[in-house]
C-alpha cells in the first residue's frame, strides 16, 4: 500500500522495495543483537566481578581470621591485573574497613564507611559489588569491588559495525534491484508498450513477447489471449454491423419493390374503366404485391421478437402432419407461379408433437419457400416427414444452387443470405432460416443444413421430439375446406369506415349476414340486438374502446359463445395477452389476411 502510493515507475518502486526491506531487516536484527549483547554484557561482567570477589574473599579469609591487614592489602593488590577494577576493599565482620586497594592512576576513591549486603549494582558507569567472606561457616568480613561498567563503548562499536554492514547491504541491494528490474519490470514494460500500441494503432494482431516462464510470463500469455479475443470480438462486431447495414439496404429495397407494380396497377384500374379482364389482372397483381409486403412486415415483426427474446409459443400436442399441410397450403401459390413440383411423403400414422402448429407450419413453409426460391423454375422439390426413433424428422431437398461448406452453419445467422445477386423480388430479408432455427430450438429440436457444394442442391433436416401422448382433439384445427359453415351472423366494428365497410363487403360476399358499427357504443347496441355469432372488433375506437366492448358483450345474454376477434395494428405479445384478458378469442393484426378471416368464419 505504501509502495503503491509512491510515485514513479515500477522500476523505482522495486528499488525502494528492496532497499526498505534490507534496511528494516538490518535495523531489526541489529537492534535485537545489541539489546541481547548489552544484557549479556551486564550479566557476564557482573558474574565475572562476583567471581573476582569470591576469589578475593577466599584468599583474604586467613588475613581476616588472624587480623593481618598487611596480608589483606597484599591479597587485594592481585587486582592490579584487572585494570577495569578501580578499587577494592575488605571490611571486618564488625563493619570496619580493614584493607583497601586503588588502581594506579585512579584519583582518590571514597570507600563506603560500612559494607552493604551481598549484591551487585550499577552506579553510573561503574559496577559495585559486595560479597561476604565466609569460612568454616563463620562470617569473617566483606569484600568490596568497584569496576568500570561501560556498555556505551560497546554500543558505539556495534553501531560502527552496523553502519558499515548497512552501507555494504545497500550497495548489494541496489545491485540486485537493478537485476530484478530486468527480470521483472522488463516483461511488464513490454506488455504495457504493446497495450499502448494496440490502442493507438487499433491493431489487435500485435502480441507481447514472452520473456520469462513465471507468473509474469503467464500474464503475457493471458494478455495475448485477451488481445486475440478482443480482436475476434471486434471482427464479429464489424461483421454484425455490416450485416445490419446490408439488411437495412435490403429492407428499403424490398419494401420499395412492390410499390411500383402497385402504382402501375392503380393506373391500369383507372384506365381500364369497365374492361373486366384488365381490372382483374390489375387486381391480381396488387394482391400479389400486397401479400409480398405483408410477408415482409411479418418477418420484420418476427425479427424484433427474436432480438428482444419475445418469440413465444402457444403449445399443444398436435399432429405434425397438420402443420405440414398448413405449410404446403401457404407456399402452394409461390410454387405454382414458378411451375415447381413439390413431392410430399407423409407417414400414415399420426406423429404427435408438443408444439405451436402455426409456428411449425411457418418453419416448414420457410424451408419449402427457400428451396423453391433458390432452385430454377420447374425444378423438383422433395418434402418428407418420417419417424426416426422418438423423433419426427422433416427433410426438404432441392436441386438448387446449394451451399458451400462455410455457409452450412452461417446460413442460420441473422441477415445472412446465400446469393446476394439473386433477383431482389425473391430474396426476402434473410431472416427466414434464423427464425426457423429459433422456432425449432424452442420446440426442443434441431435444424441442420446439408449440401455437397455449390450448385449441387441442398437438404435441410429438422428433428423434433415426439410427444408421449396422442394429439389433442381436433377442435382447434383450422379447416381448409373453406366454405364449411355458411350463413353466420357477423358484427364488424371499426372507426375506420373504409376498413369496416370493405371487410363487411368481403364477408357478406361469402354469404354471411353482416352488421357494421363505427364506434364502441354503436357496436354494443348492435350486439345486443343482432346477437352475432362472430364479432370483429377494433381496439382503438371512440366512445368505448374494444377491450370494454368485449367485456360488456361477454355479459350480454346469448353472447357467451360468440367468437370475439380483436383486429388491431398492434401485434406485440402484450397486446395479445391484454386482448385475451378482455375476453377475446382471437387476435388479428392489420392488415388482415382474408384467409385468416375465412378460417375464423369456417371454424367459429
Amino acid at each position, binding site marked *: 500500500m505504501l509502495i503503491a502510493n509512491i510515485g514513479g515507475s515500477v522500476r523505482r518502486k522495486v528499488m525502494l522495495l528492496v532497499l526498505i526491506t534490507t534496511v528494516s531487516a538490518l535495523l531489526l536484527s541489529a537492534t535485537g543483537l545489541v539489546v541481547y549483547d548489552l544484557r549479556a554484557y551486564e550479566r557476564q561482567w557482573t558474574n565475572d566481578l562476583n567471581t573476582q570477589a569470591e576469589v578475593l574473599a577466599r*584468599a583474604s579469609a586467613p588475613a581476616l581470621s*588472624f*587480623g*593481618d591487614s598487611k596480608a589483606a592489602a597484599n591479597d587485594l593488590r592481585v587486582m592490579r591485573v584487572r585494570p577495569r577494577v578501580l578499587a577494592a576493599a575488605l571490611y571486618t565482620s564488625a563493619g570496619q574497613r580493614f584493607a583497601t586497594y586503588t588502581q594506579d592512576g585512579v584519583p582518590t576513591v571514597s570507600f563506603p564507611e560500612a559494607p552493604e549486603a551481598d549484591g551487585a549494582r550499577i552506579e553510573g558507569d561503574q559496577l559495585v559489588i559486595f560479597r561476604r567472606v565466609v569460612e*568454616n561457616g563463620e562470617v569473617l568480613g566483606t569484600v568490596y569491588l568497584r569496576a568500570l561498567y561501560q556498555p556505551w563503548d560497546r554500543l558505539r562499536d556495534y553501531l560502527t559495525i552496523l553502519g558499515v554492514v548497512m552501507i555494504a547491504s545497500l550497495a548489494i541491494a541496489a545491485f540486485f534491484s537493478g537485476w530484478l528490474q530486468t527480470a521483472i519490470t522488463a516483461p511488464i514494460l513490454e506488455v504495457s508498450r504493446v497495450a499502448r500500441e494496440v490502442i493507438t494503432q487499433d491493431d489487435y494482431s500485435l502480441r507481447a513477447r514472452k520473456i520469462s516462464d513465471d507468473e509474469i510470463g503467464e500474464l503475457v500469455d493471458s494478455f495475448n489471449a485477451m488481445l486475440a479475443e478482443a480482436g475476434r470480438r471486434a471482427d464479429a462486431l464489424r461483421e454484425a454491423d455490416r450485416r445490419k447495414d446490408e439488411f437495412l439496404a435490403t429492407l428499403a429495397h424490398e419494401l420499395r419493390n412492390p410499390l411500383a407494380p402497385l402504382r402501375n396497377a392503380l393506373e391500369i384500374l383507372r384506365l381500364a374503366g369497365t374492361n373486366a379482364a384488365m381490372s382483374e389482372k390489375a387486381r391480381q397483381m396488387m394482391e400479389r404485391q400486397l401479400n409480398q409486403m405483408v410477408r415482409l412486415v411479418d418477418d420484420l415483426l418476427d425479427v424484433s421478437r427474436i432480438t428482444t427474446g419475445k418469440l413465444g409459443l402457444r403449445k399443444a400436442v398436435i399432429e405434425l402432419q397438420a402443420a405440414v399441410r398448413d405449410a404446403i397450403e401457404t407456399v402452394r401459390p409461390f410454387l405454382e407461379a414458378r411451375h415447381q413440383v413439390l413431392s410430399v411423403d407423409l407417414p400414415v400414422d399420426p406423429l404427435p408433437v408438443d408444439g405451436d402448429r402455426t409456428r411449425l407450419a411457418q418453419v416448414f413453409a420457410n424451408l419449402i419457400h427457400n428451396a423453391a426460391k433458390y432452385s430454377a423454375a420447374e425444378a423438383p422439390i422433395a418434402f418428407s416427414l418420417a419417424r426416426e426413433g422418438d423423433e419426427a424428422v422433416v427433410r426438404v431437398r432441392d436441386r438448387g444452387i446449394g451451399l458451400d461448406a462455410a455457409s452450412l452453419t452461417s446460413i442460420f445467422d441473422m441477415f445472412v443470405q446465400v446469393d446476394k445477386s439473386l433477383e431482389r423480388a425473391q430474396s426476402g430479408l434473410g431472416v427466414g432460416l434464423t427464425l426457423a432455427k429459433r422456432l425449432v430450438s424452442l420446440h426442443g429440436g434441431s435444424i441442420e443444413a446439408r449440401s455437397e457444394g455449390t450448385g449441387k442442391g441442398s437438404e435441410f433436416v429438422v428433428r423434433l421430439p415426439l410427444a408421449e401422448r396422442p394429439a389433442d382433439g381436433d377442435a382447434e384445427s383450422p379447416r381448409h375446406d373453406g366454405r364449411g359453415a355458411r350463413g353466420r351472423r357477423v358484427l364488424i366494428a371499426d372507426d375506420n369506415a373504409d376498413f369496416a365497410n370493405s371487410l363487411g363487403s368481403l364477408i357478406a360476399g361469402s354469404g354471411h349476414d353482416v352488421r357494421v358499427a363505427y364506434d364502441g357504443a354503436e357496436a354494443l347496441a348492435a350486439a345486443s340486438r343482432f346477437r352475432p355469432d362472430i364479432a370483429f372488433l377494433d381496439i382503438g375506437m371512440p366512445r368505448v374502446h374494444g377491450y370494454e366492448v368485449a367485456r360488456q358483450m361477454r355479459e350480454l345474454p346469448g353472447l357467451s359463445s360468440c367468437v370475439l376477434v380483436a383486429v388491431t395494428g398492434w401485434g406485440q405479445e402484450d397486446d395479445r395477452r391484454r386482448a385475451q384478458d378482455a375476453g377475446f378469442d382471437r387476435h388479428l393484426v392489420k392488415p388482415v389476411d382474408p384467409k385468416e378471416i375465412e378460417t375464423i368464419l369456417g371454424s367459429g
Partner: protein
Amino acid sequence: MNASRRAVLALIATATAFGGRAFAQALEVTESTVKAAFLYKFAGYIDWPDVALEPAGGAFVIGVMGNDEVLAELGRIQPGRSVAGRALAVRKVRDLDSLAGVQMLFVGRPESARLPVVVRAAQRQGILVVSETERGLEAGSVINFVVLDNRVGFDVSLDSAERSGHRVSSRMLAVARRVVPKAG
C-alpha cells in the same frame, strides 16, 4: 598490661573472632581472648592425622596446660562451635597422663620448661602443640604465639608439623609471621 594495649587487642579480637555478636564483650578482650580465638581458628586450617581423630564420633578437644585465662576464654567460645565436623570441647591438662582424646594442646608460658617433654608425648599421639614462649618452635611446638607491637602473631614450624603428622594450610602460612620449613 596497660590500658592502651588492652584497647588494641580488643579491636583485633572483635574484628576476627566474634563479629558484631560479641561486641558487647569487646571491652573485656585481652591477649588471652585473642589467643583463645586463634587456637580455635588454627584448627580450621590444619589436616589432622587419622590417629588423632580416634575414636570416631568423639568431640574435638583442645587441651590447655598452664594458662587458665586462655582456658576460660576457650570455654566461652566453645558452645555451638565445631571443628572437622566434631563439637568443640575444652579440657584443662595437668600432666601427660591425661592427654588421651586431645587433638590440640596449648602449653602456657608457666609450663614452657616442660615443653620438650610434652612435645615428645604429643607427637606420638598425633596431638598438635601450640606454645607461647620465645623459643617454642625450637622446643618442638608446631605453632608459637608471638606478641609484637601490641599485636598477636604466630610462627609455624612445618618441620614439627610433619613430625606429629599434621598438614598446615598454605593459606594460614600466608599470614604467619615466620615459617620454619621442613628439614632436608
